[in-house]
């Protein structure tokens, strides 16, 4: 008895009495819009160390510089291989630098390291080590010019059996070649580097995206191997500021998780927060990115707070805006943080099409959103409490079709919705030859048969079908789940309270959305709080391409402007340009 009383008291306690909870509240302060300073900020690039132009003869300076430039200590896929190069039977210090996953390692082993490191007949040949001397007669006396041994020419001409080598003297050429998948060889005492063509990244054995199909865009998708995914990102980003950090999650499984961001664009606090959350997880195993999403999201509410996608072009677009990408080994879906509400309603095709087409599609998606959420609830509210809204003929048609139905309206709707969900769930597991047919035919025949048997009225079939189709029109999978769940809540509210219930539902829904935060960014950005949605890349309606000037300020990126004030310079007449 005491136990029972204690349980009731503790239940009431939890319900009514305020308990101090240390609510974890991470808040990303929004960037203030100050027009004057953006100019200066763009010039003050963060990675503004002294940029060297020419390559130094001293290998240690080169090594240090390349380590800084590529953040080799934190970047997990930059490989620097130091070794002793043998030429003319002398040893010179050298190092190779390349990106793992972009190169074919067999080629490096067989055709670069082997001939240079191991003593063989080519690099130990010392026969013409004698200084060749040439006598020049000038002004009646002879000058002896000693031809010095040219190591660079020697390596280039004789030592490296590689089919395509380029020589560079400037750092920026070398770096751009590393980014595209070559391997650079630095040798001590010479100020030229060799760029060796050993590209070996995988392309197009990658399959088509199975769930995010668009008409006009790349048909690549991420795969399960993390190195392949990072190589896709490297290939598309093509910039040395892309940082890919590796974290091991899970005590037993030690799953590789990669956190990717652009160093000179993404906000440092955001990146730090993502890494902090991933690093402080006390779990044994991590298998998929879905589990990781649930572990690091802000709130365990039914709204999705991280974008998950399997398309590389979508991920790269978000990377360039200043967001952080998280890749989990073994799962083709990657996570993007933060994710606000308007992101879940946009498809990756929106930026590829003309803005007029994508805006109309967005409008259709918005209508689908409202239908999927509110249509059954509104139907039952109107026909039960507010019959004056329907035109008279429709009303009489509905009334006559409901005359023969034995069940009350709410029961009918619940039966139809449940059977629709059953068909949806069963359609996933039917063996493939009969899969599609069961889906369509089953729904149609079931509906027709139900109407003829007099169990449901025909108008209800239409309502349930439109609701189901609208929930398929939402691009993001998690958001459509949210709508499917909330539709039942609105159904019950509409049946109990008519429009009053639906208004209650909408009000609580709005407050819920306003309260939600995804990695410190309010869920209703960029509209509330008021950010720069007029010329940023993230907003609900796609802007024309010449208007996407700034990055969204709710992400507080380091670099504001994405394109100049006039991005299509070719449109300016020649006179104006001068």
């Amino acid at each position, binding site marked *: 008895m005491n136990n029972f009383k204690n349980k009731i008291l503790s239940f009431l306690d939890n319900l009514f009495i305020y308990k101090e909870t240390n609510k974890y509240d991470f808040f990303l302060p929004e960037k203030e819009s100050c027009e004057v300073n953006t100019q200066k900020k763009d010039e003050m690039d963060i990675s503004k160390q002294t940029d060297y132009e020419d390559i130094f003869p001293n290998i240690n300076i080169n090594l240090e510089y390349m380590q800084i430039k590529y953040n080799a200590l934190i970047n997990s896929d930059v490989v620097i291989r130091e070794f002793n190069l043998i030429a003319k039977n002398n040893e010179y210090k050298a190092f190779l630098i390349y990106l793992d996953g972009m190169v074919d390692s067999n080629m490096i082993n067989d055709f670069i390291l082997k001939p240079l490191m191991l003593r063989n007949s080519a690099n130990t040949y010392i026969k013409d080590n004698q200084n060749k001397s040439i006598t020049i007669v000038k002004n009646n006396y002879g000058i002896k010019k000693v031809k010095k041994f040219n190591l660079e020419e020697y390596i280039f001409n004789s030592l490296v059996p590689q089919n395509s080598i380029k020589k560079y003297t400037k750092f920026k050429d070398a770096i751009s070649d590393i980014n595209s998948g070559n391997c650079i060889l630095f040798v001590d005492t010479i100020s030229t580097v060799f760029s060796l063509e050993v590209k070996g990244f995988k392309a197009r054995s990658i399959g088509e995206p199975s769930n995010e199909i668009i008409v006009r865009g790349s048909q690549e998708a991420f795969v399960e191997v993390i190195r392949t995914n990072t190589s896709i990102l490297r290939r598309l980003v093509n910039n040395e500021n892309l940082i890919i950090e590796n974290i091991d999650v899970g005590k037993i499984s030690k799953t590789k998780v990669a956190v990717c961001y652009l160093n000179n664009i993404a906000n440092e606090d955001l990146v730090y927060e993502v890494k902090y959350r991933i690093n402080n997880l006390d779990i044994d195993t991590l298998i998929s990115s879905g589990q990781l999403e649930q572990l690091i999201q802000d709130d365990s509410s039914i709204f999705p707070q991280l974008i998950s996608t399997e398309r590389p072009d979508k991920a790269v677009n978000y990377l360039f805006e200043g967001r952080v990408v998280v890749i989990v080994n073994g799962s083709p879906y990657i996570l993007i943080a933060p994710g606000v509400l308007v992101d879940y309603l946009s498809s990756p095709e929106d930026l590829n099409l003309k803005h007029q087409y994508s805006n109309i599609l967005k409008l259709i998606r918005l209508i689908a959103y409202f239908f999927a959420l509110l249509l059954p609830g509104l139907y039952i509210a109107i026909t039960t409490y507010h019959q004056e809204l329907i035109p*008279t003929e429709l009303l*009489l048609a509905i*009334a*006559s079709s409901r*005359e023969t139905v034995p069940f009350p309206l709410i029961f009918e709707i619940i039966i139809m919705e449940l059977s629709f969900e059953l068909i949806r769930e069963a359609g996933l597991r039917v063996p493939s030859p009969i899969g599609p047919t069961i889906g369509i035919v089953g729904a149609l025949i079931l509906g027709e048969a139900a109407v003829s048997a007099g169990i449901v009225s025909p108008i209800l079939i239409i309502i349930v079908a439109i609701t189901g189709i609208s929930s398929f029109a939402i691009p993001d999978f998690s958001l459509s789940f949210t709508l499917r769940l909330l539709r039942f809540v609105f159904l019950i509210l509409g*049946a109990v309270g008519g429009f009053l219930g639906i208004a209650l539902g909408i009000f609580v829904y709005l407050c819920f959305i306003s309260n939600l935060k995804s990695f410190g960014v309010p869920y209703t950005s960029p509209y509330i709080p008021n950010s720069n949605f007029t010329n940023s890349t993230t907003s609900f309606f796609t802007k024309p391409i010449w208007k996407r000037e700034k990055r969204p300020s709710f992400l507080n990126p380091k670099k504001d402007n994405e394109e100049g004030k006039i991005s299509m310079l070719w449109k300016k007449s020649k006179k104006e340009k001068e």
Partner: protein
Amino acid sequence: MNILKKTISIILISILILLTLTGCKYENNSIENQAYVIALGIDKGKENLLKLSFQFATPSSDSTSSSSSGSETTTTTVECSSISSGFNLMNSYISKKLNLSHCKVIIFSEELASIGIAEEIQTLINKIQIRPEASIIISKCSASDFIENAKPNLMSLIAKYYEIIVTSGKYTGYYYNSTLENFYSSLEEGLIEPTAMLGGINVENLHYIDKNINYIDIDSSYVAGTSLVEDENLIQLMGTAVFKDGKLVGELNGQETISHLIITNKLEQCIINIPDPFSSDNLISVSITLNNTKNKVEFVNNSPFITVDTSVEAYILTYSDASNYGTEEALKIIEKYINSYLATHISSYLYKTAKDYNSDIAGFGKKVISKYTNINKWNESNWSENYKNAFFHVNVSTDLEGSTLMINN
């Protein structure tokens, strides 16, 4: 013991939740448990009682057909002492619950209207379910006969029939839709007196040709029910009922309604006959659309002197080989005829409303109120009694566009 306590607590909590849903008594409110009234008729019954008639739309009972082929209607009548208790009596008689939110027309009989309908109108306005766009019809026969004979002859759905029939005055000019809201506002305001449509059943013995009227004018001289249409007994709307202080004081026939619409700037299109200036036996049919009407009210010796300036556009519709309307002088002559024809008719209508009925249905009160700056002074001027002393002067100017497709020179 634990399991027992758990089950008891679960049952208690579910009972608590179910108790909160007691407000949703939607069983009775469900859509098929209500009877929808399409038309409401109010008559005078024996002694002081009212007679209410309801026309229900019964949904067709077969559900296998995808659309109902026609909606049947049933009419029921009940005698009661007031409108609200009449609803109550009817509720106890029929099986479903009465729902007035789709009531399209409200019909008062002529007999009841002469006694006064201000109280009924106010009761109906107070009922939230009746939409303010419901039309008001005064019927020359009894309201229950009117409703029983209201069968749609060119369509199958009764609600749409009512919606369309009250708006066809737009292209004939013989009557004008008056809604419940308009009627009530005019009743309360005092700037304009309320009007309503006249309706009746077109039966053989009511066909009436006034010998005093020139044959040219006969077509527009009918009121509802007297026009020479030979068909089964169906309802007809034509003419306007004139009210003063909530009582029916007179009626206007088709021609006078056209004049009324011209003065109140509401005429859209109508067709009138004028005598042919070139041959005395023929007539010309002309289609008229209104451009603008300006009214001016001045006070001469405390009686109002009202000037009306109208401008209309006209098309000639009659065409025959003998006619000669192509030249400019011919058009001018016809214009003059139209001017004088319209001016006489408008004038006679105005004097009829002023002298016979003393009811300002044309709304000249609106022009008078702009001369006052204080509501008390306006109330003191007592315009509604002063109207019968009014003098009128009418000017019409016509713009004749010629005929529609063919013309001979």
